[in-house]
C-alpha cells in the first residue's frame, strides 16, 4: 500500500517502523512518529468530517490543537470508544482504529448535505433557537435528531477497561510549552535549582522548531532541543511532561495538566498503567510559553478540503515528510506565508503562485521565493475556491489597498491546495482562564495577555514575539524573573544564535472581499467547527447584537470543541467591521477551561466505581453483611435498613422486627450517631447556651434529651447528652449532623465565647453503640453483666459504667422506641465481641436485629421526631409540640431563643406537627403528601400541610403518620384530606402524634 503524499526522506518519522491503522473501515499505512492526521494526509484522504450545520465536506486544516475539522472517533472495541479526538494530536500506533464522526450515513455521501446545497438562508444564525425551541415539549425530540445529524461522536456503551489517575504536584515554576521560549526558560530555572515542571502537549519537546528547517548555532535546531532536554532530564527536581496539555489555569496558580500516558501506545493501556493522568499543580510561578496559532483568511469556500493554514503545510512537510497535495496556491497577508511555498517547492512539488494582499512586499522569504522562480501575485487575494470534496482551483482578484473591495478582474488558477496566512494569534487561552482580559496589540495584529493577579510570566509567541532569537531571549528573561521571584540565584545560560530572517510589515486583513456582497457571496467560513460564516456574523450584527459575547452566543462562534482557536479573531474583526468599530472596541470573548477536551476518566481519576464516594462502616458491619441486611445510606454511612429472613419481603421483615422489640427484645447498631466529648468547667454552661432546654442541674450519672436550634430558632439537630463528670459531658448528635454540630460548637466557642473553658473532641468512631430495646432487654443485659441493672439502681435516663461481656462499657438507659432500652457503648475495637456475646445470650429471648426502618416506625409510634425528616429548617420547638424542651428561664439568651420569638414565629396558624390517622386503617399515606381541608376545592387547592413520616404499624394494626397542619395543635379530631397524584383522596383525622403508651410506662418494666 503506497502513501501517495509521503516524501522519500526527511521529517521526524521513522520509515523503518511502518504502522497499520484503520480509518473508516479501511486499512492504511503510516510510520512511527506520525500523527493520525499526518498519516491520513500521507494516504491522500481528503474528507475527514461533514460540517455541523451545512454538512459540507471538510478536510484537515491545521497540525495541532487548533484543528477544527479532523475530530475523530477512536477505539477498536465498544469499550474503548473515545470521541472528540483531534487527529492532529493523536499519535499513530499499530492497530489504531478511527472513524469520522460527522456524516450520516458517511462522510463521503451525506444525505444531509442537501441542506448545505440549498444554501445558508435555510439555516441562518439562531436557526435552532428560532425553529426548534417551540413547542418546548418537542425540544428533546428535535435535539436528538440534530445531534444525530451533527454527529458529535459518541460515548462507549461499555465500561472503560482502563484506569485513570489524579496526581497532586507542587513546584516553584511551571513552564507551559516546550518550544524555544519554554525550553530557554526551563533551562534557566532548572540550573538555578528550582523545582520545575515543564509540560508540552506534543510527544516531543521543541515546539515549532520541529516544524522548520531553521538552525541554531549553525546546527539543526533539533540538536539544541535534544541537548537542553537531556540536561533538564538530569535534574532531580525537574519534571518533564510531554504529551501533557495544560488545560486549565485556575485561581492562585492552580493549574491542571492532562497527560496522555498510553494513548500513543495502544487501544487499551498496558496492564497496571494509567491511561491518562490529571496533574493538579500548585505552582509558585507560571511561565506561559504557549506560542501562537496561525490565522486563516476568510474567503469564499475556504472550507473546501485542501484549504489549510500555511504553517500546517510546512509542519506536515518538515516534521512528518508529507506534502498534502500536488499544486499549491498560497494566499497571504505577510512574509511568513511564503514559507509553505518554499517548503513545498523544496519538496519537489508545484507551487502555482503566492498571492499576496500587499502591493509591494519586501523580505528575505519573498526574495527566496523569487529565486526559486515561484510566481508572486501582489496586491491580490484568493477570493474564492472551486471544488467540493477537494480544491480544484482558485479565483484570484486584485483588491483595494485597504482590503475592503475587489478592484480588478478575476483570474482562475488550477490548484488542489490553498495555504493561507492572515498572521498569528497568540495562544492566550490560559491567561484568560482566571479572568484576565486580553489586550489588543496593533503592531502584532492580535490579542496578548492582559493584566493578571496570578503569579504569571509570559514569553515568546504568546506575547506576539515570533522571531526565534527574540523568542529565546524572552524565555531566558522569563526564567530569570521566575528564579528571582522564588528567591533563588540565577545560574548562567548562554543562548544559541538563531538565524535572522528580515521580514516586511504584514497587512492587517482578516476578511477577503468578494465580487458579491458578503450576504450573497459563496460561504466565507469564520468558524469551521460550528459552521459560522462572515455573512452570519454580519446578520447577527444587523439583528441588533452588538456585544461580542451576544454575537458569539447567537451564532455559536467559538462554541465548538476547538473553542474557536482559528476563527475567533476573524469573527471579531468581521463583527467590528459590521458594527463600525475597532477590534479593541468590539472586545474579545474570554476563553475558559479546558484548553482542549479532556476525558471524563482523567477528571474522575480513581474516584469511580467502589471509590466514587467513601462508604463508612461500623465495627459490626461484617456481621450485618453476613446476616443479609439490606443497607441504607445515611450520609456516607451504610446502615442496616432491615434484616430480611428467607422469603420475607420488606414489610414482612419490618413487621417481624417491630413486634420483636415490642414483645421481647431487639438490637440496633447505633454506632453511627455522632458523639462529641466535651470537657471543661464551662461545659455545662456551654450546653445551656447551645441547647434550647436547661442543663444547669443535670447531675453526674444522668442523661437528657436536647434540641439544638439555629439563631433563627429553627431546630437543626437533636440528641441525648450525658453528664459523665462534673466537667465532662458526652453529646450525641444525629448520624448525618455529626460533623456539622461539632463545627457549630467550635464556631460559637472560637468566635463568640472564647472565655468559656471547654474543649470539644469527636469520639463518633471511638465508641460502638449497641442498643438493646424491648421488655426483655434488662434480662438480656443481666446475662452479660454482674452489675445491678434493676429499675431501682439503674433508672430511666441514668447512665452507668459497667462491664458487659467482659468489656468495660458506658450504658445509657434512654429510649427511642418507648421500650425499656439500654444503649451499650464500648470501645469500637470490642464492639463486635459484645455484639456477638449479646446474640449468644439473646437466643432465648429471640434477640432480633433491627434496622433503621424499624427504628423509624417504633419512634413514630411514640411520636418522636427525626431531625431532618420531621424538621426542614423552618420549624421551631413549639411547632413540633416540643415546648417542654424549651427553657426560657435560663439567664443566658441561648442560641435560638430570640429567633423563635420573632413575630412570625409566635403567630397563630403556623404549621404544627401532629399525628395523622387515616380513616381506613389499612391505608398508608405517602410521605410528602399535601394536606387540604376541602378535597373538592378547585385546583390549585389551598394546601395546609404535608406528611413527614408515615408507616404501617404492625403493633397497632393500623397505619400511623406524622405531619404538619396549619394550626394543627388546635385542630385535634378534625378531618383533613390528602389528594394524591393518581386522583385518589385519603381521608384522615388529626390526632396526637403519640400513638402508643402516652404515659411512657413501657420503658419502666
Amino acid at each position: 500500500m503506497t502513501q501517495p503524499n509521503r516524501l522519500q526522506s526527511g521529517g521526524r518519522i521513522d520509515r523503518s517502523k511502518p504502522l497499520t491503522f484503520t480509518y473508516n473501515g479501511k486499512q492504511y499505512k503510516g510510520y512511527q512518529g506520525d500523527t493520525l492526521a499526518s498519516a491520513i494526509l500521507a494516504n491522500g484522504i481528503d474528507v475527514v468530517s461533514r460540517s455541523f450545520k451545512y454538512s459540507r465536506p471538510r478536510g484537515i486544516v491545521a497540525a495541532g490543537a487548533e484543528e477544527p475539522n479532523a475530530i475523530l472517533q477512536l477505539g477498536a472495541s465498544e469499550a474503548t470508544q473515545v470521541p472528540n479526538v483531534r487527529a492532529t494530536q493523536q499519535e499513530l500506533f499499530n492497530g489504531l482504529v478511527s472513524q469520522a464522526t460527522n456524516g450520516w450515513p458517511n462522510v463521503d455521501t451525506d444525505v444531509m448535505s442537501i441542506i448545505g446545497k440549498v444554501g445558508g438562508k435555510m439555516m441562518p444564525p439562531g436557526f435552532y433557537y428560532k425553529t426548534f425551541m417551540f413547542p418546548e415539549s418537542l425540544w428533546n425530540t428535535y435535539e436528538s435528531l440534530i445531534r444525530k445529524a451533527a454527529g458529535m461522536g459518541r460515548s462507549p456503551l461499555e465500561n472503560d477497561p482502563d484506569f485513570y489517575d489524579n496526581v497532586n504536584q507542587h513546584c516553584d515554576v511551571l513552564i507551559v510549552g516546550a518550544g524555544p521560549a519554554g525550553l530557554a526558560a526551563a533551562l534557566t530555572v532548572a540550573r538555578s535549582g528550582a523545582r520545575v515542571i515543564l509540560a508540552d502537549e506534543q510527544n516531543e519537546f521543541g515546539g515549532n522548531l520541529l516544524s522548520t528547517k531553521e538552525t541554531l548555532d549553525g546546527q539543526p535546531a533539533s540538536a539544541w532541543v535534544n541537548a537542553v532536554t537531556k540536561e533538564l532530564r538530569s535534574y532531580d527536581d525537574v519534571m518533564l511532561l510531554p504529551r501533557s496539555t495544560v488545560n486549565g489555569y485556575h485561581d492562585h496558580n492552580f493549574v491542571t495538566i492532562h497527560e496522555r500516558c498510553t494513548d500513543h501506545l495502544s487501544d487499551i493501556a498496558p496492564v497496571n498503567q494509567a491511561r491518562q493522568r490529571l496533574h493538579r499543580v500548585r505552582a509558585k510561578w507560571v511561565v506561559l510559553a504557549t506560542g501562537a496559532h496561525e490565522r486563516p483568511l476568510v474567503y469564499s469556500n475556504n472550507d473546501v478540503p485542501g484549504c489549510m493554514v500555511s504553517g500546517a503545510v510546512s509542519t506536515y512537510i518538515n516534521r512528518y515528510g508529507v506534502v498534502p497535495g500536488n499544486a499549491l496556491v498560497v494566499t497571504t497577508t505577510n512574509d511568513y506565508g511564503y514559507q509553505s511555498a518554499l517548503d513545498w517547492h523544496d519538496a519537489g512539488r508545484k507551487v502555482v503562485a503566492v498571492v499576496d494582499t500587499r502591493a509591494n512586499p519586501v523580505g528575505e522569504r519573498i526574495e527566496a521565493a523569487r529565486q526559486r522562480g515561484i510566481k508572486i501575485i501582489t496586491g491580490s487575494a484568493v477570493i474564492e475556491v472551486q471544488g467540493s470534496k477537494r480544491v480544484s482551483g482558485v479565483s484570484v482578484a486584485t483588491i483595494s489597498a485597504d482590503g475592503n473591495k475587489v478592484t480588478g478582474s478575476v483570474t482562475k488558477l488550477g490548484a488542489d491546495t490553498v495555504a493561507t496566512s492572515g498572521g498569528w494569534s497568540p495562544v492566550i487561552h490560559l491567561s484568560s482562564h482566571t479572568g484576565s482580559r486580553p489586550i489588543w496589540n496593533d503592531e502584532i495584529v492580535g490579542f496578548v495577555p492582559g493584566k493578571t493577579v496570578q503569579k504569571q510570566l509570559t514569553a515568546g509567541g504568546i506575547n506576539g514575539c515570533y522571531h526565534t532569537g527574540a523568542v529565546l531571549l524572552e524565555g531566558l528573561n522569563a526564567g530569570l524573573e521566575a528564579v528571582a521571584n522564588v528567591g533563588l540565584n540565577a545560574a548562567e545560560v548562554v543562548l544559541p544564535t538563531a538565524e535572522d530572517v528580515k521580514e516586511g510589515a504584514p497587512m492587517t486583513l482578516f476578511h477577503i472581499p468578494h465580487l458579491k456582497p458578503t450576504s450573497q457571496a459563496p460561504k466565507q467560513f469564520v468558524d469551521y467547527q460550528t459552521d459560522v460564516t462572515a455573512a452570519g456574523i454580519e446578520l447577527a450584527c444587523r439583528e441588533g447584537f452588538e456585544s461580542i459575547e451576544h454575537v458569539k452566543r447567537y451564532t455559536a462562534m467559538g462554541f465548538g470543541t476547538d473553542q474557536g482557536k482559528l476563527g475567533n479573531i476573524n469573527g471579531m474583526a468581521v463583527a467590528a467591521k459590521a458594527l463600525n468599530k475597532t477590534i479593541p472596541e468590539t472586545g474579545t470573548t474570554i476563553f475558559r477551561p479546558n484548553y482542549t477536551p479532556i476525558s471524563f476518566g482523567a477528571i474522575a481519576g480513581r474516584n469511580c466505581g467502589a471509590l466514587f464516594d467513601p462508604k463508612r462502616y461500623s465495627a459490626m458491619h461484617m456481621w450485618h453483611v453476613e446476616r443479609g441486611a439490606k443497607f441504607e445510606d445515611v450520609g456516607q454511612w451504610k446502615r442496616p435498613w432491615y434484616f430480611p429472613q428467607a422469603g420475607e419481603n420488606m414489610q414482612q421483615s419490618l413487621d417481624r422486627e417491630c413486634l420483636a422489640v415490642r414483645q421481647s427484645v431487639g438490637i440496633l447498631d447505633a454506632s453511627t450517631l455522632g458523639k462529641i466529648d466535651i470537657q471543661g468547667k464551662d461545659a455545662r454552661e456551654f450546653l445551656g447556651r447551645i441547647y434550647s432546654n436547661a442543663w444547669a442541674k443535670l447531675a453526674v450519672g444522668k442523661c437528657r434529651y436536647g434540641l439544638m436550634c439555629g439563631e433563627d430558632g429553627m431546630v437543626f439537630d437533636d440528641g441525648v447528652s450525658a453528664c459523665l463528670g462534673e466537667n465532662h459531658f458526652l453529646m450525641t448528635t444525629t448520624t448525618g449532623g455529626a460533623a456539622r454540630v461539632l463545627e457549630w460548637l467550635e464556631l460559637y466557642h472560637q468566635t463568640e465565647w472564647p472565655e468559656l473553658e471547654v474543649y470539644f473532641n469527636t469520639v463518633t468512631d471511638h465508641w460502638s453503640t449497641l442498643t438493646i430495646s424491648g421488655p426483655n432487654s434488662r434480662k438480656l443485659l443481666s446475662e452479660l453483666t454482674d452489675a445491678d441493672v434493676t429499675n431501682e439502681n439503674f433508672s430511666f435516663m441514668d447512665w452507668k459504667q459497667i462491664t458487659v461481656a467482659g468489656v468495660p462499657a458506658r450504658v445509657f438507659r434512654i429510649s427511642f422506641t418507648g421500650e425499656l432500652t439500654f444503649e451499650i457503648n464500648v470501645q469500637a475495637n470490642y464492639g463486635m465481641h459484645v455484639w456477638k456475646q449479646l446474640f449468644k445470650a439473646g437466643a432465648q429471648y429471640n434477640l432480633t436485629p433491627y434496622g433503621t426502618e424499624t427504628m423509624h416506625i417504633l419512634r413514630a409510634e411514640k411520636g418522636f421526631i427525626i431531625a431532618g425528616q420531621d424538621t426542614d429548617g423552618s420549624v421551631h420547638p413549639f411547632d413540633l409540640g416540643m415546648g417542654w424542651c424549651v427553657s426560657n428561664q435560663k439567664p443566658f439568651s441561648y442560641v435560638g431563643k430570640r429567633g423563635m420569638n420573632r413575630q412570625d414565629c409566635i403567630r397563630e396558624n403556623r404549621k404544627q406537627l401532629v399525628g395523622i390517622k387515616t380513616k381506613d386503617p389499612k391505608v398508608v399515606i405517602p410521605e410528602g403528601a399535601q394536606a387540604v381541608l376541602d378535597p373538592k376545592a378547585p385546583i390549585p387547592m389551598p394546601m395546609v400541610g404535608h406528611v413527614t413520616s408515615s408507616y404501617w404499624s404492625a403493633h397497632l394494626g393500623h397505619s400511623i403518620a406524622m405531619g404538619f397542619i396549619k394550626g394543627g395543635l388546635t385542630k385535634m379530631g378534625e378531618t383533613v384530606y390528602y389528594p394524591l397524584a393518581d386522583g385518589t383522596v385519603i381521608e384522615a383525622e388529626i390526632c396526637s402524634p403519640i400513638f402508643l403508651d402516652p404515659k411512657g410506662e413501657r420503658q419502666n418494666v
Partner: protein
Amino acid sequence: MFHIYCPHCAEYREEEEFHAVGQAHIARPADPDACSDKEWGEYMFFRKNPRGIHHELWVHAAGCRKFFNITRDTQNYDIKEVYKIGEKPSVVAE
C-alpha cells in the same frame, strides 16, 4: 481552587481542607432579647456582597479545626491577608 495560608498551621493549604463560613466580624448581639425584630433580622440575614474587598470567616476543617479570617478581593479572588479571630484586618475597602 484557592490556596489559603492557615495562620495556625503557618503554611499554605488547598481550599478543599477549608470551609467558608460567611462574612466575618458579625458579632452576636450582647443582649439578643433586647433586639427588635428588625435588628435581629439584620444580624441574622443581611450580609454584604461587595465588589472588591471582603472579610470572610473560614475554618481549617480538615486541618487544625481553627476559625480565622480572610480578606479577599471578590473581583479576582486575590487573598490580601489572613488574620486570627479577635484580630483586626489591616487591608480594608477604601
